[in-house]
C-alpha cells in the first residue's frame, strides 16, 4: 500500500502500465489461437480488469495535480511525452468505465467464434483500447498522431472482422479513407500550432502564442480533423456504415468511446493548446453541432437496421455535444466564465452519459444479434418475452437516451437547456437571436430522440415476433448480462447523483475555463446556478414516483381486486391478426420521412395489392452523400481516367515523356 505522495508521483507510470498491459494482452492473444474457449474466458475478462484499472487511474488523475513524463521510445530525438491532467483523466475514466462493461459483454459475445479470427480480433481489440488510452495521455503531436493512427487502424481491422462480406469491406474502406483525410488535417493543425519552433511537444504549442489568423487556421483544421472522427455532418458518411459493420461490442466502443476521443482532442486543442479563443469559432461549432444533431436524429428515425439506427443516433449525440462546445466557446469569449463552466459541465456529462447508454444499447443489439442472427428490425419483435434480461436492461438505455427523468440523459440535457436560459445580455446582438433558435433545435432533437427510441425498442423488443423462430431466441449468457448490468447501473447512478458527478467533473471544468459553477447544491438537490433559479432532485423524484406507484397498487388491490383474465387481443374486433400487421420499422418511420422529405432521397418498392408474397422496401438515402461525396468521387474517377490516357504501356512513349520533362526542367528550372 503506497502513500498518497508516492501515488502522486507514479500515477502516470501506472497509466502507462495500463496501456502496456493491454498491449501485452493483445499480443498474448495471438499465442492462444488454438484455444478459443480459453481465449474468450481469459483474455477478455483480463482486459476488462485493465479497463477498471484505467478508470481508477483516471479517478486518481482527477484528484491529483497534473504530472508528465518522457518515454525514450520512438525515433531518436523524438521521445514520447506523456501527461496526465484533469482533462485526460476524465476521458480515461470514461474510457475505462465504458470499456469495462463492453469487454465483460465481449467475453460472452465472442464465445462462438473460431480460434484464428478470434485471436486476431482479441489482439486488435486490446490494441484499440491501448491506442485510445495513448491518445488521451499523449503530450506531443508525434505521440498523439501515432496513437491516433493505432486507434484508427486497429478499429479498421475490427470493423472489417467479417471481411468476406463486400458491403463490410466497403464500409471499412470508407472509414479508413475519411479517418485519414481527418488525420492529415490534424497533422496540419499541429503544424500550425507549433508556430515555427519545429518542436512538436504540447508544451511548446502552449507557449507558442500563434497570431489570431493562424489560431483560426489551426482551429478550423482541428475542427475538420476531429469532426471527421466524431461524425460531424457532412463528414459523417462513414459512421452509419462502419459502426454497424463492426461486431457489436466494437460498435459500442467506437460509438461510446472512440467518438469521445475526438471531443477530447477538440477540447485539448481549443482550450489548452491555443492561446486564444475567438467568438465566431463558437458560433460555427454551435451551428454545425445543431445541424449534426438534427440531421442525425432525423435519419435515425427512418432506419430499418437496428445498429444503423443507433449509429445515426450517435451522430445526433455528437451534435449535441458539439453544440455545447460551441456554446462554451461563445460564453468564454463573451467573458461569461460561469456560464462557460456550466455548458462545459453539460458537455462532459453528456459525453459520459453517451458512453454508457450507447454502449448499453449497442451491446444489447449484440445480444439480440447473437440470439437471432438478425439486424433488420423488420424481422425481429417480441423479444421481451424470450430475452427478458436483455430487453429490460436495454429499456434502461433506451429511456436514458430519450432524455427521460430520472435517468442520466435527462441531467445533461437539463444542464444544457439551463445554459440556454441564462444567455440574455450577451454583447453580440445576433447571438441573442441565435440562442433561442438553438435552444429550440436542441429541444426538437431531444423530442425526436424519444420517437427514435420508441421505434427502436417497440419494434425490436415488443409486439409479436415477426418470425416464428424468434420465440425460441436464447437469452444472453451471464457475461453479457453482467456487462449490460454494469452499463445500465451507470445510466441509473449517473442520473440519480448529478451533484456528485458534477463535483467530480469540477477539476476538468476549472482547468479548461478557469471557472467553477456558481452553485452545485447539496447531495439531494442539484442547483447549478442558485436555488431560486433552477433545481432538480432526481432522488426525490424517484422516491415520489415509487411512493405514488406503490400507493396506487396497494389501493387498487385493497379496495378492489387483482383479478386478471387472459384472452386474445381485442384490436377493435378484427378477427384476423398476425405479426405482419404491426408497424414495420419503415412504417414507424414513415411520418418522419414524410415531414423531412427534403433531407433524403427515398427509394420505394411497393407491392401490388394482389401479390401473394407482398414485399415492401423503403430506402431513405442521405442526400449529403449524393450532393457532396458522389461529385468528389466522380471527379476523382474522371481525373484518374484522364491520367490513364497518358499511360499506353509502350516504352517509346514513356521515353518521350522523360525526355520532354528533362527539356522542360533544363529550360525552366535551372
Amino acid at each position: 500500500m503506497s502513500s498518497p505522495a508516492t501515488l502522486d508521483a507514479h500515477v502516470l507510470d501506472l497509466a502507462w502500465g495500463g496501456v502496456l498491459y493491454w498491449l501485452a494482452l493483445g499480443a498474448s492473444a495471438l499465442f492462444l489461437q488454438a484455444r478459443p474457449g480459453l481465449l474468450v474466458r481469459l483474455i477478455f475478462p483480463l482486459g476488462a480488469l485493465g479497463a477498471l484499472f484505467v478508470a481508477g487511474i483516471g479517478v486518481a488523475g482527477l484528484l491529483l495535480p497534473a504530472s508528465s513524463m518522457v518515454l525514450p521510445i520512438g525515433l531518436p530525438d523524438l521521445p514520447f511525452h506523456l501527461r496526465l491532467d484533469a482533462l485526460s483523466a476524465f476521458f480515461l475514466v470514461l474510457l475505462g468505465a465504458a470499456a469495462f462493461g463492453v469487454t465483460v459483454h465481449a467475453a460472452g459475445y465472442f464465445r462462438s467464434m473460431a480460434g484464428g479470427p478470434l485471436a486476431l480480433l482479441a489482439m486488435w481489440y486490446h490494441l484499440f483500447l491501448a491506442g485510445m488510452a495513448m491518445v488521451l495521455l499523449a503530450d506531443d503531436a508525434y505521440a498523439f498522431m501515432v496513437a491516433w493512427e493505432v486507434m484508427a487502424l486497429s478499429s479498421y481491422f475490427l470493423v472489417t472482422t467479417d471481411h468476406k462480406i463486400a458491403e463490410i469491406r466497403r464500409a471499412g474502406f470508407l472509414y479508413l479513407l475519411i479517418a485519414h483525410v481527418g488525420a492529415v488535417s490534424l497533422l496540419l493543425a499541429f503544424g500550425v500550432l507549433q508556430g515555427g519552433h519545429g518542436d512538436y511537444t504540447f508544451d511548446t504549442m502552449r507557449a507558442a502564442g500563434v497570431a489570431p489568423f493562424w489560431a483560426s487556421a489551426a482551429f478550423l483544421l482541428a475542427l475538420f480533423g476531429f469532426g471527421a472522427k466524431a461524425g460531424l455532418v457532412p463528414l459523417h458518411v462513414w459512421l452509419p456504415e462502419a459502426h454497424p459493420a463492426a461486431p457489436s461490442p466494437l460498435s459500442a466502443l467506437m460509438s461510446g468511446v472512440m467518438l469521445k476521443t475526438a471531443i477530447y482532442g477538440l477540447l485539448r486543442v481549443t482550450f489548452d493548446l491555443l492561446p486564444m479563443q475567438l467568438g465566431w469559432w463558437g458560433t460555427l461549432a454551435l451551428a454545425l453541432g445543431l445541424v449534426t444533431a438534427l440531421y442525425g436524429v432525423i435519419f435515425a428515425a427512418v432506419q430499418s437496421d437496428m445498429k444503423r439506427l443507433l449509429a445515426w443516433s450517435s451522430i445526433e449525440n455528437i451534435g449535441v455535444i458539439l453544440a455545447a462546445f460551441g456554446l462554451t466557446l461563445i460564453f468564454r469569449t463573451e467573458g461569461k466564465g460561469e456560464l462557460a463552466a456550466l455548458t462545459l459541465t453539460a458537455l462532459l456529462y453528456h459525453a459520459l452519459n453517451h458512453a454508457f447508454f450507447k454502449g448499453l444499447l449497442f451491446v444489447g443489439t449484440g445480444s439480440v444479434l447473437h440470439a437471432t442472427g438478425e439486424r433488420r428490425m423488420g424481422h425481429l419483435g417480441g423479444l421481451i418475452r424470450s430475452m427478458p434480461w436483455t430487453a429490460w436492461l436495454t429499456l434502461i438505455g433506451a429511456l436514458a437516451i430519450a432524455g427521460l427523468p430520472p435517468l442520466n440523459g435527462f441531467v445533461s440535457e437539463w444542464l444544457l437547456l439551463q445554459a440556454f436560459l441564462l444567455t440574455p445580455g450577451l454583447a453580440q446582438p445576433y447571438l441573442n437571436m441565435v440562442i433561442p433558435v438553438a435552444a429550440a433545435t436542441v429541444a426538437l432533437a431531444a423530442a425526436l430522440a424519444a420517437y427514435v427510441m420508441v421505434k427502436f425498442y417497440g419494434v425490436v423488443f415488443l409486439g409479436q415476433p415477426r418470425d416464428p423462430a424468434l420465440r425460441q431466441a436464447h437469452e444472453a449468457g451471464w457475461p453479457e448480462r453482467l456487462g449490460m448490468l454494469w452499463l445500465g447501473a451507470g445510466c441509473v447512478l449517473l442520473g440519480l447523483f448529478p451533484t456528485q458527478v458534477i463535483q467530480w467533473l469540477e477539476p476538468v471544468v476549472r482547468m479548461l475555463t478557469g471557472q467553477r459553477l456558481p452553485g452545485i447544491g447539496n447531495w439531494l438537490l442539484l442547483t447549478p446556478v442558485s436555488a431560486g433559479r433552477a433545481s432538480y432532485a432526481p432522488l426525490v423524484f424517484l422516491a415520489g414516483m415509487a411512493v405514488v406507484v406503490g400507493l396506487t397498487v396497494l389501493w387498487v388491490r385493497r379496495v378492489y381486486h387483482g383479478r386478471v383474465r387472459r384472452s386474445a387481443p381485442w384490436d377493435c374486433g378484427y378477427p384476423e391478426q398476425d405479426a405482419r400487421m404491426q408497424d414495420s420499422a419503415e412504417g414507424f418511420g414513415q411520418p418522419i420521412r414524410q415531414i423531412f422529405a427534403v433531407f433524403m432521397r427515398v427509394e420505394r418498392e411497393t407491392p401490388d395489392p394482389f401479390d401473394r408474397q407482398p414485399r415492401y422496401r423503403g430506402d431513405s438515402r442521405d442526400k449529403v452523400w449524393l450532393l457532396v461525396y458522389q461529385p468528389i468521387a466522380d471527379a476523382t474517377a474522371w481525373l484518374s481516367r484522364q491520367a490513364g490516357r497518358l499511360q499506353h504501356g509502350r516504352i517509346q512513349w514513356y521515353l518521350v515523356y522523360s525526355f520532354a520533362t528533362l527539356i522542360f526542367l533544363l529550360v525552366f528550372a535551372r
Partner: protein
Amino acid sequence: MSTGILLQAAQTLLAILLAPLLMGWVNQCRAWLQGRSAPSIVQPYRALRKLFHKDAVLAHDASPLFRFAPYMVFASMALAAGIVPTLANDLPFSPAADVIALVGIFALARVFLALAAMDIGTAFGTLGARREMLVSFLAEPALLMVFFTASLISQSTALPVIVATLAHKAFAIHPSLAFAAVAFWMISLAENARIPVDNPTTHLELTMIHEAMVLEYSARHLALIEWATAVKLFTYSALGIALFVPWGIAAQGDVAALPLALAAMVAKLAAGGAALSLLEAVSAKVRLFRVPEFLGTAFLLAVLGMLIHFLLEA
C-alpha cells in the same frame, strides 16, 4: 414548512380528485353546445368506479411492461400535478422538478404508454404509438419554448417562482407571453388528445390517436389511464392558469388568501373548460398530416415569443 407540506398534499390530492370533475364539466358543456342532453357532471367518476370493479382482461402475450405502464402513467401525472401551483405557491416538492423536468415527466408517461401500446403487437396499438410520438415530438419542444419564455421573464425555471413573478410582482405587460399563450393553447389541445388534433370520443380507426393506444386496456388498467388523462387535462389547465392568468393564487405563506384562491381557481377552470368545449364544438378534426402544420405553427409561435422577449423585453 408544515403548512407547506400540508398545502402540497392538499393541492396534489385536489388535482387528482377534481380532475374527473373538470372532464365531466367539459363533456357537459360540449353536450349542451351540440344540443344533446348532457350527462351528469359526475359521470367520469361513475365510469372510473365501474372500471375498477371489473375483471382485467389481458392479451395472452402481454408482458409485465404492459401491466406496469398504467401505474407509471398515473404516477407521472400525479407528480406533474404536484408541481403545478393551483391554490397556493407553497410547494415543498416543486424544487425536485422544474418546468424542464415537468416536460420530462410528461414525456416519461407518454413513452411508457406508447411502449405499452406496442407491447401486444396489434395493428392499432402500433398505429397509435406512432401517431402519438408524431404529435409529441412537435408538441414537446414547443411546450419547452413556452416555458422558456416564462422562465426568461422570471429568471427561473421553478414554477412557484414564475408564478410569484407574474402574479405577485408589479404588473407588467409582456408581449412575448401573448405569443406563448396562443402556442400553449394549441399544444394543450394536441397533448390532451382534443379536437382538432385528436378526438377523445372517437373509435374510428383512421382518426384515433390516444384511443388507439389504449384499446387493449380494460378494467383497472384502463381506469388508471383514463384517470391519468383527466389529471393531465387538469394539470395543463392549471399550468395555463399559472403561466398566463396567475392572479388569485395565494402567495407563499399567505393562508388567509386560500378561500379566495379556491374560488378563483374554480372560476378559471370552469371558464377554461367551457372555452375548450366551445372550441371543440366549432372546429373539426384535421387530417393527421395537417397535424404537423398545426403544431409547427405552435412551435414557431413559441419560438417567436422567445425572440420577442429577447428583442423587446430583455
